Every structure is written in structure tokens, then in C-alpha cells.
């Protein structure tokens, strides 16, 4: 299973629509970094509106991909985290500090522009 990565101007947009198993998550991490490198994109929005479960492993992969992208010079914003997912993550003890987030895709793009000073 591959998660599609769309290019929009100098941004990359991802809407995760599938149940995230470990392999899909790791593959996505690699695909996204390659895509940033290939397209020279400065910003990424990962929309998680359809994701119903984020466990500690998936959270780690998402947190890592934000840091890795940052290392390459691209900003990542996570959007659309469901109320149930937010509650579960905090109870689990996962705080995803230093990860930029926004309510939805639209606000995610606004946040990206702010972060990039555009």
C-alpha cells in the first residue's frame, strides 16, 4: 500500500485515507522525503482527517517525518487530527511536541505560509 503524495505549487499535500499499518507508514516516510528532494518543495501538509487510530508506533513515524523533513529544509504541518485520536494520544503519553498542527487542510496551508514567511 502506497499513500499518494500530491504536488501543489511548491507544496506537497497528503491525505491519509487508509488504515496505517507499520509498513505503509515506513514506506510513506521514505516516499515523502524522496518527493521533497525531487520536487524541492518547501512545505508539506499531511491531513489525518480520515485516520481513526494513531498508536505509539505510527505517532513516532509521523513525528520523525516532521523532524526529517525539517532537516532537509521543508516544513510539515499535520492537520485534521480527530478528537478521539487527540484524547487517545495524550492518555497514551504521546505529546508530539514541536509538531506544527492545524484544524484542517485550509488552515494547514495558512500555517505553512506563516512558518515559511511567505
Amino acid at each position, binding site marked *: 500500500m502506497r499513500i499518494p503524495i500530491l504536488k501543489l505549487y511548491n507544496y506537497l499535500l497528503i491525505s491519509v485515507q487508509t488504515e496505517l499499518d507499520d509498513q505503509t507508514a515506513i514506506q510513506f516516510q521514505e516516499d515523502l522525503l524522496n518527493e521533497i528532494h525531487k520536487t524541492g518543495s518547501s512545505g508539506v501538509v499531511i491531513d489525518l482527517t480520515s485516520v481513526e*487510530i494513531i498508536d505509539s508506533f505510527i505517532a513516532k513515524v509521523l513525528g520523525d517525518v516532521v523532524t526529517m523533513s525539517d532537516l532537509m529544509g521543508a516544513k510539515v504541518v499535520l492537520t485534521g487530527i*480527530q478528537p478521539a485520536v487527540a484524547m487517545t494520544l495524550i492518555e497514551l503519553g504521546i505529546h508530539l511536541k514541536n509538531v506544527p498542527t492545524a484544524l484542517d487542510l485550509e488552515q494547514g496551508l495558512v500555517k505553512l505560509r506563516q512558518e515559511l514567511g511567505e
Partner: protein
Amino acid sequence: MNSSPSYININKEWDIVAARQLARDMSKKLGAGTVDQARIATAVSELARNIYLYAIDGKIYIEAIEKMERRGIRIVAEDNGPGIPDISLVMEDGYSTSGGLGAGLPGVKRLMDEFNITSEEGKGTIINTIKWVR
């Protein structure tokens, strides 16, 4: 009236997803709200991953239960792995041997209402948890 438990063998990565999907379906059928569904499914995901990472092989049992007019879901994670030498250590927040986030068992305990763990070195581990549906 307790139904017979469903179970999933955990010995490959995809079994983790299968276990949490079953947990989600069963908690939904039981009338759990979306937050409790997420809590239960996430707890199962963590327990199944522990089996896969540390014990290689084990089972997750998921069962609808009813006790004193309360309905709930019981999750039992059972493996024949190496066992846990020091349970108090793995129940500390932030403790991890796998380089993960260390959410592990203390996280599962917080997500569920009842949590019990027994482990014997060289024999395996049994974790028994319940979430009551409100």
C-alpha cells in the same frame, strides 16, 4: 451473559492491524462511543505490537463481558515469550527497550479501566484488561 472470546494470533506485522480492527468492530457493536472505540483499538494495537516485538508469537483475546449490569470489553494478551523480569520497571512511564516512544504498558493502563499483568521469566506474559462501556 458473556460471549465466547474471539482471538487473533499475533506473529506477523499485519496481525497488529487485524487485532485492532477486530477490537474496534467489537467495541462499536457493544455501543462504545468513538473515543472509547479509539482507546480500546489503540490499547490492542500496543499490546499486539508488544507481542510481535518481544515474544514473536502470541494471542489477543477480545471478549464482550457483562458484570453487575455493566457491559464492557475484555482484552487478554497472552504470549509464550521470554517474560518480563521486572514488571515495575516496564510500568514506568518512558521505559522502553525497543527504542520506541516508551508509551507501552503504562499507556495501555491509562486507556483501559482495569489492568492486570502476570509474567514469568522463560514462560511468558499474560495481560488482562477491561474497558467498561458507559
